[in-house]
């Protein structure tokens, strides 16, 4: 990670994916540029990509299905990797899998649709992270409340233009974000737009 840039900014075009790197201690901001756009986030220990940011281990660590400032997201080895330091959105999901070709072909009858799994795999291809390693994501800005009976609703995000979540990297990491291309459900407000990832040494808050 000595080659990691001191700071960086990348726009994730709507429906596509982009990778980023952050050193331990840096801040990672994910911004919903136009509002109502989900970002599927995955991350890996930069020194050992067999350790990944894990929703199931994070649920055990937080004993919650929701995120709030101060929460630490953990890896498959239960080590804190990202801490939520600020969040203007307040609604995220980490229980729904990334969309993939089967989702579009099997459920919507559409072959060849862009999807988060492929987006993340493409974005991470240069980092030696293969498709099998791309596991369940944190769906930043996704609004998927669970009812008392355990059913799930896939609703439009509550985010407005410029809403953002800010993390602090607690491990040096390789990450990727897919600006989810799902346009057959309300999850992106039926309009696929850009996200912005900013890695900074100073807190943006």
């Amino acid at each position, binding site marked *: 990670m000595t080659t990691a840039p001191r700071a960086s900014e990348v726009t994730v075009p709507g429906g596509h994916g982009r990778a980023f790197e952050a050193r331990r201690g840096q801040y990672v901001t994910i911004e919903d540029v136009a509002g109502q756009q989900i970002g599927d986030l995955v991350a890996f220990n930069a020194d050992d990509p*067999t350790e990944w940011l*894990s*929703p*199931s*281990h994070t*649920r*055990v660590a937080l*004993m*919650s*299905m*929701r995120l709030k400032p101060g929460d630490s997201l953990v890896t*498959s*080895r*239960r*080590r804190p990797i990202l801490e939520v330091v600020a969040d203007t959105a307040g609604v995220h999901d980490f*229980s*729904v*899998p990334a969309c*993939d070709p*089967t*989702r579009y072909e*099997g459920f919507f009858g559409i072959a060849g649709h862009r999807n988060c799994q492929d987006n993340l795999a493409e974005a991470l291809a240069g980092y030696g992270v293969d498709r*099998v390693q791309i*596991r*369940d994501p944190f769906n930043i800005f996704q609004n998927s409340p*669970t009812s*008392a*009976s*355990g*059913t*799930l609703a896939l609703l439009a995000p509550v985010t407005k233009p410029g809403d953002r979540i800010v993390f602090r990297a607690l491990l040096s990491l390789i990450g990727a974000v897919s600006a989810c291309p799902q346009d057959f459900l309300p999850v992106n407000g039926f309009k696929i737009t850009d996200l912005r990832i900013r890695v900074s040494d100073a807190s943006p808050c």
Partner: protein
Amino acid sequence: MLKLTAYDPAPEAALTIAGGHGAAFVVRRGQFLTVTDVSGQQVGDFFAWNFHDHSEFMSPHNTRLLANALVPPVGSRFVSNHRRPLFVLVADTVGVHDLLMACCDPARYASFGVADHRSCAGNAADALRAVGMAVPRLYDPVNLFMNVPVDADGRLAIEAPVSRAGDHVTFRATLDTLCVISACPMDLNACNGGHVTDLHVRVHNEFA
């Protein structure tokens, strides 16, 4: 190494998994798998792979979404990372299971200040090694009989299972599968009601 036999009907099996330990076994397409909580309040961490392609494995994440339920009811398909059914749940005398939590591992026990405790991750590795099978990586389990209520604010709790002696679930396999079940050794919280006990596994060709 486990191999599939060519004859039909597929071989049946019955085994008791000692509390705190695990076992690996095959369930052929079309066969039934019944897991019984022998004494009650015992969680079974259930992992499964496509026997012919271990890069395809049972995904609680995809299963919850397809069932649109945190706890999929009878009739639900338990699907893989490729959203392909591995099993259909055909009977369930409990209705309380967990598909949200990671399996216990040495790091989990370390968080309780305990070293060298048995764990479901270790049990799965041991069980696979015992039958000469290697899988690329362990994924999240379906935690049979585990009781993880979710409140209106999304908070989770680990409570004692509601299962009683003899309660069971039955799946029907829709692919040839390699399975691992660990009778969870967690004795530091309510997960297993404070007592780690046996599970019974039966692989059978008739639904009875």
